């Protein structure tokens, strides 16, 4: 693996749904170890961009490189295998399963299963399961969700569901973590907690993070760099301070006539 260049490069990617150009020749890089925020008005193509990176959509033109290798047309499970984990805008937990089981599914890729040994809970299978349980318990401690370990995920309040989803993504020990509106629908306190977790994940685990967020205060506080999308095009890319002063960004948010 190439350790020098950026972790992820998106080059001239366009995505279209019929006549609608959801993304138009978007290029951006995600550097190793940074927190990148992707912002933009509703319908700007932020989630589409995330879906392209995680393999749910495939670009109509353009290329995506991960750690220097081309991976434009990979499917979601293969993207996951490369070390990219994500959360979803409308929490996608396994509602009937316990929090613990939910997070354990995050480790499926790391398990080399043998059905018979698993079932008998014997030998290497037992050691493996215990090792994974230990890793999951560390994440549970890290995100402070010890108390809800056995609760079915569907019963949790929304803010906690978002936290469990983050835990599940972390369980895969990703190199790149994609968060789609991790703080949507949260109250101030929950937002502060989530900010702290994101900074800790980045700082302590060294995980590179790209996140979509609407709360400008949060974005400016925690991100190293900000990319702004509008109508499927990238209109700005820079540090929070640069982006804040950018005229195109002000126009997009405050509104001028688009012609």
């Amino acid at each position, binding site marked *: 693996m190439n350790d020098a260049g950026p972790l992820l490069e998106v080059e001239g990617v366009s995505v279209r749904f019929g006549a609608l150009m959801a993304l138009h020749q978007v290029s951006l890089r995600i550097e190793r170890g940074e927190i990148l925020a992707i912002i933009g008005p509703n319908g700007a193509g932020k989630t589409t961009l995330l879906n392209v990176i*995680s393999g*749910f959509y495939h670009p109509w033109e353009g290329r995506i490189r991960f750690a220097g290798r081309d991976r434009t047309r990979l*499917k*979601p*499970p*293969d*993207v*996951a*295998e490369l070390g990219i*984990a*994500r959360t*979803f805008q409308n929490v*996608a*937990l*396994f*509602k*009937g*399963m316990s929090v613990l*089981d939910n997070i*354990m*599914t*995050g480790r*499926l*890729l790391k*398990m080399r*299963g043998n*059905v018979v040994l*698993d*079932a008998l*809970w014997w030998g290497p299978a037992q050691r493996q*399961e215990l090792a994974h349980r230990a890793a999951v318990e560390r994440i549970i401690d890290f995100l402070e969700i010890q108390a809800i370990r056995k609760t*079915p995920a*569907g*019963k949790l309040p*929304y803010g906690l569901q978002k936290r469990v989803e983050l835990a*599940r993504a972390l369980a*895969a020990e990703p190199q790149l973590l994609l968060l789609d509106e991790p703080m949507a629908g949260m109250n101030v306190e929950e937002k502060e907690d989530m900010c702290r977790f994101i900074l800790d994940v980045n700082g302590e685990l060294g995980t590179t993070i790209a996140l979509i967020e609407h709360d400008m205060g949060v974005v400016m506080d925690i991100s190293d760099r900000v990319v702004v999308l509008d109508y499927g095009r990238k209109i700005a890319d820079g540090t929070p301070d640069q982006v804040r002063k950018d005229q195109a960004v002000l126009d997009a948010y405050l509104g001028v006539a688009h012609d």
Partner: protein
Amino acid sequence: MTEILHGLVAPFADIASNPSFFAEVLIGGIAAGLMYSLVALGFVLIFKASGVFNFAQGVMVLFAALTLVGLIERGAPVALALLLTVGVMVLLAFAIERVVLRPLVNQEHIILFMATIGLNFFLEGFGEMLWGANVKRLDVGIPDTSFKIGNVLVNRLELTAALTAAVIVTVLAVFFQKTSIGRALRAVADDHEAALSLGIPLKTIWTVVWSVAGLVAIVAGIMWGAKSGVQFSLSLIALKALPVLILGGFTSVPGAIAGGLIIGVCEKIAEVYWGPLVGGAIENWFAYVLALAFLLFRPQGLFGERIIERV
């Protein structure tokens, strides 16, 4: 009025006065119930893992039995025929995943359901084309005769079927709850997209689960085929599995077993003791009445996952 009351209550006296006959009725009910459970299991497996209600499950039972009998008729030894049938069902699972499910990923459940209706008619026609439509006898080497335990008559074939069902159910329950593949299956059942993003390959999971459902269909096909001959009506036992599913819950393996037992036992007892009151033939519809009652009071079934909805 008093006559009706008498008619309703009198059977209890009958039960008390002849306990060994009651035990025979009970055992007959349990045996029939386990056979229902086997069919219901096939439904549950596929529903759990892909959220698809597989309309073709009954025909899969028929198809498995037809294939087995057909191979035996053509001179294959029983063991070889069984092995080949297993191969055919696994192959079928691969084909279904490739041709039916994969093109329909992320479609509405109702569309997948429609696809299984198509599959149902295809398999039915294909099976009859390959093996012919006449009734066939399936001899598994266990005589359909009875022996006595104390005062109670027990049928050898029913006993074997019951034990087989019990073993299969145990294995499946462990598989789902204790193995990492089982966990992946439950994850896929809950949310396709999230499962994909965690690196769980849908196509492998679907192939596994349809194969397992195929294997369960073979066992059900053998048991029912040995009892009543291999013929088209075998596919209709799927309809008997519906009330079992409503009772047990669509997502629960133990539920399919308990549901099957309850239905089997209740309909036998109702038929034998209360049937004469209304001129008999309760057995055919009693299960559905029971299911209706459950729909009213416990729609998720006995063991189904609680229906959790945040508003």
